[in-house]
């Protein structure tokens, strides 16, 4: 009791005092501060262990990172199983762990609908892209998109697409990190953001892809292990009967509903049962389909995910990695669903975790964190807090590496130096870019502290689905695609997805503060329109393209196709 109060006291404020038991009150204000440090140390020590371990790995990885190829792809020597875990570690963010379990706790079934969207892109990526990417590419997805096209324009487009996605994803992670760590560790927001920024710079700067991969693998194991334990403890309490767990959750929700004055028992029962079916998450069919498209096809256009396919030695290993990744991520979303229901029965019923108004101390995103203490005590609470921090580090390291590669490999080496840059100078540019990106991420993280940034991750997915994915897809699979078509269509998708997001309620009303209902674009996600525009643009400007370059582009398709299907000629990509 004392510990929960002390851990969260700065966030929850005086309101918690009302709920404290006699010993806590007897401890008094001063001891509260001392206790706060004592509890923080559990989490901080575990996090420090994680940092020490990952820094040792970085030191080991630094010795192996000698060339640009080592930096971008760990020399292509990661196995399919390792890469699968690393992809899962790259993809399962703290937002999905804390956010989805919170969504399940609040509205039950709607949280499941949301998480399914993040999973269904993986088969599409497997069936249509994974092995072709491996067979055609070397370091970045621009290698694939620009395979048979004029290098400069396509690389400039791909680098723009990469940097826009990375920027929004990174800001969302930084702000999330600052808020979370402020809450879990009792550190100031800016200190938390600086710690994340410095550590991510150290991993990427010295250890490149090797260190990033291992940070992601360790994080994936810790997160999956911790979440499995929580789900196991919840199921154990109900004798491993889902019916018993759901019944208990419905009862809790019914009781909560009936405590509101003027609610009839029938209405309360209906409200309780409502968590077992779809609620208000899907407002209108257009938004539902559009958001589904952003998640499904966006996954196949995220630069930091696509880059991971170049770290394995063959198409076979690329397929194995996506198989493992899909399995782990799917399993993880099943766990978050159980954790969310566990939070209903263990956390919402326990006054220790609630403030005077009956809402969760520290906000709804603390659902999984409170549950960790409820099922595993303070040591496990420290463990889960440390895992949440580690999770953010793994995701931001992958993003930074991807952004740095776009600048050094696509812009510097290919566009500026015409592909003639030597490995040493390319590596130097990657490292300078990493430092720049780290500083920019910290500054933006601090600048956006008080902003409503809920739209940023869905915007990153929308851009990936509307710009990166169509260009990649058409360049690999459509023989008549040309440089001009890919670049114009790609930029149309990029510009329209950003513009329509700004005009949508989540930015226009929630961030810019215009009145509710005034947003010119009424839907949740732009993908249905911007992705269509991207594809239509590529098609139209390709078939209209009669330039000499267009004939070269089309003539290059048969050779590209043979290599993308068989991998013949791709061996040098992995034999660095």
């Amino acid at each position, binding site marked *: 009791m004392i510990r929960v109060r002390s851990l969260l006291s700065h966030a929850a404020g005086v309101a918690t005092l009302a709920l404290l038991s006699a010993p806590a009150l007897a401890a008094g204000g001063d001891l509260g501060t001392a206790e706060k440090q004592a509890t923080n140390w559990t989490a901080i020590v575990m996090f420090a262990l994680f940092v020490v371990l990952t820094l040792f790995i970085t030191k080991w990885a630094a010795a192996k990172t000698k060339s640009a190829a080592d930096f971008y792809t760990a020399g292509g020597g990661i196995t399919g199983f390792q890469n699968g875990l690393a992809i899962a570690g790259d993809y399962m963010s703290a937002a999905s762990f804390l956010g989805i379990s919170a969504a399940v706790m609040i509205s039950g*079934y709607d949280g*499941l*609908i949301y998480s*399914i969207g993040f*999973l*269904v892109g*993986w*088969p*599409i990526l*497997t*069936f*249509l892209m994974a*092995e072709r990417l491996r067979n055609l590419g070397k370091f970045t997805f621009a290698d694939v998109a620009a395979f048979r096209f004029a290098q400069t324009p396509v690389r400039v487009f791909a680098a723009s697409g990469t940097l826009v996605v990375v920027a929004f994803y990174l800001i969302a992670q930084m702000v999330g990190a600052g808020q979370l760590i402020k809450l879990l560790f009792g550190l100031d927001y800016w200190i938390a953001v600086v710690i994340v920024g410095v550590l991510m710079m150290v991993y990427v700067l010295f250890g490149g892809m090797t260190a990033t991969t291992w940070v992601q693998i360790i994080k994936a194991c810790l997160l999956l292990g911790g979440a499995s334990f929580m789900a196991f403890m919840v199921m154990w309490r109900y004798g491993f009967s*889902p*019916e018993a767990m*759901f*019944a208990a959750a*419905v009862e809790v929700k019914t009781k909560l509903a009936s405590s509101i004055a003027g609610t009839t028992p029938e209405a309360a029962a209906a409200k309780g*049962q*409502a968590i*077992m*079916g*779809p609620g208000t998450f*899907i407002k*209108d*069919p257009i938004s*539902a*389909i559009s958001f*589904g498209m952003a998640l*499904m096809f966006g996954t196949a256009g995220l630069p930091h995910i696509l880059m991971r396919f170049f770290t394995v030695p063959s*198409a*076979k290993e690329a*397929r*194995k990695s*996506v*198989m493992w990744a*899909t*399995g782990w991520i*799917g399993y993880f*979303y*099943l766990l978050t669903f159980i954790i969310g229901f566990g939070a209903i029965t263990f956390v919402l019923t326990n006054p220790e975790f609630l403030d005077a108004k009956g809402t969760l101390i520290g906000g709804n995103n603390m659902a999984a964190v409170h549950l960790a203490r409820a099922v595993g005590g303070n040591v496990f609470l420290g463990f889960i807090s440390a895992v949440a921090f580690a999770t953010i580090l793994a995701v931001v390291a992958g993003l930074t590496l991807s952004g740095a590669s776009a600048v050094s490999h696509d812009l510097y080496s290919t566009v500026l130096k015409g592909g003639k840059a030597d490995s040493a100078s390319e590596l130097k540019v990657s490292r300078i870019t990493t430092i720049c990106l780290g500083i920019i991420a910290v500054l933006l993280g601090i600048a956006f502290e008080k902003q409503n940034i809920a739209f940023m991750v869905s915007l990153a997915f929308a851009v990936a689905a509307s710009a990166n994915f169509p260009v990649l897809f058409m360049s690999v699979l459509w023989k008549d695609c040309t440089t001009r078509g890919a670049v114009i269509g790609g930029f149309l998708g990029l510009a329209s997805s950003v513009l329509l997001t700004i005009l949508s309620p989540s930015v226009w009303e929630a961030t810019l503060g215009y009145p509710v209902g005034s947003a010119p674009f009424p839907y949740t996600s732009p993908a249905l329109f911007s992705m269509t525009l991207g594809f239509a643009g590529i098609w139209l400007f390709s078939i209209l393209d009669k330039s000499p370059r267009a004939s070269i582009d089309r003539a290059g398709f*048969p*050779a590209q*196709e*043979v*290599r993308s*299907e*068989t*991998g*013949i*000629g791709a061996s040098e990509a992995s034999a660095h």
Partner: protein
Amino acid sequence: MEQSLAARIAANPDYQRLKTTRSTFGWLLTFAMLIVYYGFIILIAFKKDVLAAKIGSGVMTWGIPIGFGVIVFTILITAIYVRRANSEFDALSEKIKAEVLK
């Protein structure tokens, strides 16, 4: 890659077979995934009560096994593709390589 080698591979009947079989299989599974996911979304958008309907006398609804089913389907369909690609398609690929690179 030299153009002549590419042309030789493109003319190889095993390559033609690999390309057709794999691309048909890949697209088939892609459509299966699209139908399952968008079927689920359309069910939520237009027929919420189907998912909210109780299975038995308890609180369990059809939505739970269907939602979990979509997750399991997603993992299984990926496994099915990877299994076939890593055995049958890769064997064919190796055969083509042996034929054209000898």
